């Protein structure tokens, strides 16, 4: 099978599994809702303040929530030795990686779409800057989280206490991406500064780390 066909088959399988079980999306959504509510109690911000803190809040909530989806990415494939079967098959490893990364990307995007009304309701949030820029930041930022997250989930699946391991190795590497997402979102919401630099930075981060992931994934998949 070609890379594209393999990736498509894996992606469709994952989407169908998620559609029927809704494991990842339900736990992510509920967790994100809890974060939103808890922060709202903790700060009880006004509309003006919430514009300043929402950028940080949204992305921290998403970062923690995304861990649910990322952790189950490969755990699912351990049952019945599916991952081992994949390794002995001639299918290209990068197709598997891309399918998993795109799957997680879609899950987190769905989460973002569902969370937006929550923020509008609880924080009275309205953007001063253009909304299309927020969408660009969301797409780039989500990919930045998910591409490394999918890779590190493949790393941490081989360790003891794997569920804890993923955030421990993912967060330090993601600091520049997180900074970019938070600052871009805040500058768009408040309309005070231009997010251009951060959007470029996120694009560079995405390209660099997608390349590193694709270069190293086969090595990690076959690690013995």
């Amino acid at each position, binding site marked *: 099978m070609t890379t594209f066909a393999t990736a498509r088959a894996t992606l469709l399988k994952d989407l169908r599994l998620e559609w029927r079980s809704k494991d990842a999306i339900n736990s992510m959504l509920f967790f994100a809702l809890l974060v939103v509510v808890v922060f709202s109690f903790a700060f009880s911000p006004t509309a003006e303040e919430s514009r300043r803190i929402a950028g940080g809040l949204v992305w921290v909530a998403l970062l923690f929530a995304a861990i649910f989806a990322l952790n189950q990415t490969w755990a699912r494939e351990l049952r019945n030795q599916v991952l081992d079967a994949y390794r002995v098959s001639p299918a290209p490893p990068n197709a598997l990686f891309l399918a998993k990364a795109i799957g997680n990307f879609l899950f987190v995007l769905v989460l973002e779409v569902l969370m937006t009304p929550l923020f509008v309701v609880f924080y009275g949030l309205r953007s001063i800057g253009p909304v299309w820029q927020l969408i660009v930041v969301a797409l780039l930022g989500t990919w930045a989280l998910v591409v490394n997250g999918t890779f590190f989930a493949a*790393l941490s699946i081989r360790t003891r206490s794997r569920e804890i391991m993923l955030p421990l190795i993912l967060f330090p*590497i993601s600091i*520049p991406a997180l900074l970019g997402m938070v600052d871009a979102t805040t500058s768009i919401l408040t309309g005070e500064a231009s997010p251009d630099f951060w959007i470029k*930075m996120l694009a560079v981060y995405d390209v660099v*780390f997608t390349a*590193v992931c694709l270069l*190293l994934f086969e090595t990690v998949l076959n690690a013995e």
Partner: protein
Amino acid sequence: MKNLFIAFVVLTVALLAYSTYQALFVAPTEQTMGEVQRIFYYHVPSAWTAGVCFFVNFLASLLYLWKRDARSDALAAASAEVGVMFCTIVLITGPIWARPVWGIWWTWDARLTTTLVLWLIYVSYLVLRRFAAGGQQQVLAAALAVFGFVDVPIVYMSIRWFRTQHPAPVMGGGENSGLDPAMLHAFLWNLLAFTCVGVVLLVLRYRLQRLEESVEAAHAAAALQGGSQ
């Protein structure tokens, strides 16, 4: 080889004694900052040694991914640990100096933040090494090392942009061009001494790592023999 190493350790101790004497007694006291400026003779060489260690870690990790030689993995493990230790020294001596000179313990300045993120990344590397099981550990650690090294310039670039909107505290003294020759003298001796200390620790840690591996291999062999009886 062993004698050579012992000679090197003796030389390092002598160097360290001489450079400490230079830094604390010979180098002139800085005019505005006073005695606290002398921490630079430890702070900057530690940062340099940590940087060298992390670079060695990156090269050894790449070499491991390429050749799959257990020795380069042991070197990667040793250099990450020694690097984290020196980086910790940097992060502790920095605020001790900053408090009297800047009036604050910490600021999210480009260099400070990058050092902290660097420290976090390599601590997570050490955590991964501890938690990864058996034979996979080396490959996983090497992969993470590559990620960490690629991340550092991006961190530096983004923080620099992030913080240039704010007036950054002036980096006074240090190795900048305005350094007094007597200070430079003390500084260079310390740089040499700390690099040698780094090499000594690296060699010792590397040997320990190799030793641990052979003990583990012996245990595994013994277990295999016990199983076949």
